[in-house]
């Protein structure tokens, strides 16, 4: 019996919706075990890994490959006993602490503190950008961030360049059309210009443009997918901070989610969660600190580092998407202010 120390609120609620059910082991890695539950994956992670939506974390470091758990094997989930069993190995989450991974919920629960000024937020975004450009893995989409040619384009980023530019145009227009909003900073109303009006068309285009990125790139979670996760993280951060409406964020999320079949199950599962604002804790922590009045550069960079550490290039690609959407907001914001 392996005790688990953490479970995401999303995983708890997902498992709670079923009683005793047999599922199958989708994939096994040294530090992660994925269980296929219908169209979704529940992941058990080894201690020290970041809690993300639909995940449970073991209390001790665990090598799942060495436990003899095999892909395709049966897996039994018993919510009443708070236990998941795969290949005679049981994972007990009865004492696990519950962690919220929905940024909208976490954002609404946070104790209200003084907010950073808009110019501080944008300058922090520049700090993160510089940090990612210096330290990120350039093998995925990172070159898309680079405007001075210091990071060379690779096969994947070259392929995605025009596609992400198209997506950016859609996002900017959708942000501009989010005209119900009064920003907490400026109290100015975002107003759509006449050419931005066809919002419905924009969402159709956006869905297509997400589709032209989903599944592209190296890695188990292709870089394009991680980029999308980053975009969605930024979008839901903006919604959580009241800078765009939740409705707009939700619609952008839907556009991304409609394309998950274009990638593999594991990666698609991350996009699906992100499309609802459900993100790993490290991303949420970073997002929250961006808007905190008293966040030092060290604190900000140490949070960015946690995200950057994901996988091989995944962290870099997520942050690239995050910065990309943040700049899109900045562009929309600047235009709206005029």
């Amino acid at each position, binding site marked *: 019996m392996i005790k688990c120390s953490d479970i995401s609120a999303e995983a708890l609620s997902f498992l709670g919706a079923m009683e005793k059910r047999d599922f199958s082991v989708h994939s096994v890695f040294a530090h992660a075990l994925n269980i296929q539950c219908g169209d979704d994956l529940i992941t058990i992670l080894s201690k020290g890994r970041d809690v993300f939506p639909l995940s449970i974390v073991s209390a001790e470091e665990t090598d799942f490959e060495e436990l003899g758990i095999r892909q395709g094997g049966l897996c039994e989930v018993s919510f009443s006993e708070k236990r998941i069993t795969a290949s005679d190995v049981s994972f007990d989450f009865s004492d696990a602490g519950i962690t919220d991974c929905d940024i909208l919920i976490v954002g609404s629960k946070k104790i209200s503190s003084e907010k950073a000024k808009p110019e501080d937020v944008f300058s922090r975004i520049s700090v993160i950008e510089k940090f990612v450009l210096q330290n990120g893995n350039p093998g995925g989409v990172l070159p898309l961030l680079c405007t001075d040619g210091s990071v060379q384009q690779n096969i994947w980023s070259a392929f995605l360049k025009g596609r992400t530019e198209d997506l950016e145009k859609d996002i900017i227009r959708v942000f501009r059309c989010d005209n119900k909003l009064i920003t907490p900073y400026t109290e100015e109303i975002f107003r759509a210009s006449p050419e931005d009006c066809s919002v419905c068309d924009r969402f159709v285009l956006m869905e297509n443009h997400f589709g032209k990125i989903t599944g592209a790139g190296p890695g188990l979670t292709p870089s394009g997918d991680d980029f999308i996760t980053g975009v969605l993280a930024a979008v839901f951060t903006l919604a959580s901070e009241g800078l765009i409406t939740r409705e707009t964020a939700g619609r952008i999320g839907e556009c991304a989610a409609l394309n998950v079949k274009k*990638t593999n199950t594991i990666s698609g599962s991350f996009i699906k969660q992100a499309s609802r604002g459900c993100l790993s804790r490290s991303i949420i922590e970073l997002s929250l600190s961006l808007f905190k009045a008293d966040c030092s550069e060290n604190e900000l960079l*140490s949070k960015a*580092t946690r995200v950057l550490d994901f*996988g091989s*290039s995944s962290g870099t690609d997520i942050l690239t998407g995050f910065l990309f959407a943040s700049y899109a907001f900045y562009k929309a914001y600047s235009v709206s202010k005029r």
Partner: protein
Amino acid sequence: MNTAFDFPTMKEEMQVVKLEIRKNAYYDSVTLMIISKDLKKLPGVKEALVGMGTDLNKEISHNIKLNSPELDAITGNDFFVAVECETEDVMKTAIAKVDELLNKKKEISIANYYPPTLESALKIDPDLNLALISVPGKYAAGVAHECLDKDINVMLFSDNVSLEDEKKLKEKAVAKGLLMMGPDCGTAIVNHVPLAFANVVSKGDIGIVAASGTGLQEVTCIIDQMGAGITQALGTGGRDLKDEIGGLMYNMELDALINDPSTKVILCIAKPPGKDTQTKMLKKIKDGGKPAVVFFIGGNPQEVEDMGLVGAVSLEDSARKIVALSRGETPVTFEGFDIGEEAAEKFVKDEIAKYAPTQKYFRGFYSGGTLCDEAIKIMIHQLGDIYSNIPLKPENQIENKDISREHTCLDFGDDEFTRGRPHPMIDTSIRVERIIREGNDPEVAIVVLDCVIGYGSCDDPATDLAEAMVKAQKIAESQGRHITYIASVCGTEKDFQGLTKSRDTLRNSGAMVMPNNAQAIHLAMKILKELENR
């Protein structure tokens, strides 16, 4: 499930393209990155694409003509490697490399039967008498007890074992006359068999007991490089000499070496022990009657000398002294340079002449914890403050491990760096990234590095570090600066990576390669002292 398609898809210019496809197979991103990186390094490989078989990845393959009908048939849940090579022979090498990397675990398990339990292992060989245990900390004590109950000596690689459990295990082992090395014991050489992270060293008459992993590696390697050899190199685990444990294993291992007729002299290495334990330990060594050198890293050698034993000031000094004793010579304290004082002076002057006025700080980037610790302890008196993730003074704790501050010395093998990543001896990338990044720091004058080779370490750490140094130096030079790189290799000629080969690789990148860590640190200190007077 696995398919290799050797289709004669010849690109224009007669290039050979081959695909390796694994249906419904998932490999972690680090494995995929290593495959991609290693394939592209192979001579004759023009292009390599590694990814999941999504529609867009297939489109990219088509765009660069790394495609085939078989590729069209795969799905997003299939893994593929597409390689373009100059010749068929190169292709064979590339495919062999992919197989090697992907099947590493599988091949091992097919070639060697891995008994799932201790009982089944004993069925195969009832005479087994040593177990190397590496399981999650929660289970480690239980497994170790099980082995000891069956009269099996234990090397416990796992950490996160409580002091209470450690004491119980060691009491049991001592009562039965068994070894219980660890917990957190990463290095040992028992009956000339290197265990875990260890090097291939010559046989000789020096017995070693050490409560320090890379410390043990460093001294065994220096002893080997000096033409001497060892009988046993036994670990104890880092906490054994705390008063709570009372040196239970240290004492037993000392007894073993004292009573071992092939051990002529004894070398003891540890961080300074608890007061009571130190007194008892030194008395035991003294009473044992064999010539001995004791080095407490960061401790006062006079306390050892006062007991009539030979103390030491560095890992190198302790190795030199024990070799002298083994040869019947009088040990002399050594804090100099193999290259000679004059050559060192000249090097210092030449380097300082190349610095920009902003350059004044030292950076130590280590994969070995003891080597990092040794560096800080040697330098602290001269430098005052050295910021680190394993600082000597609490106020020198580095705030952000990713951002250097003034004089900084980091142990990249520490938990906060290895969370979710392999140890830096296995995967150099974390240090490589850092070395390159520091090229941009206008305040950096000197970067000191260790390069630990041997069992457990990656295939060619020296090349990775050398490439990083070249890149970082280019960055510095483009900004009108020059950085001094000082490296040392912990290893022997018999290690599969090769000592000379590794040193040459580092030297060819422009680094000053010193024979060991202590000399590397002393050279760095010499530069810093001269810089103060600039």
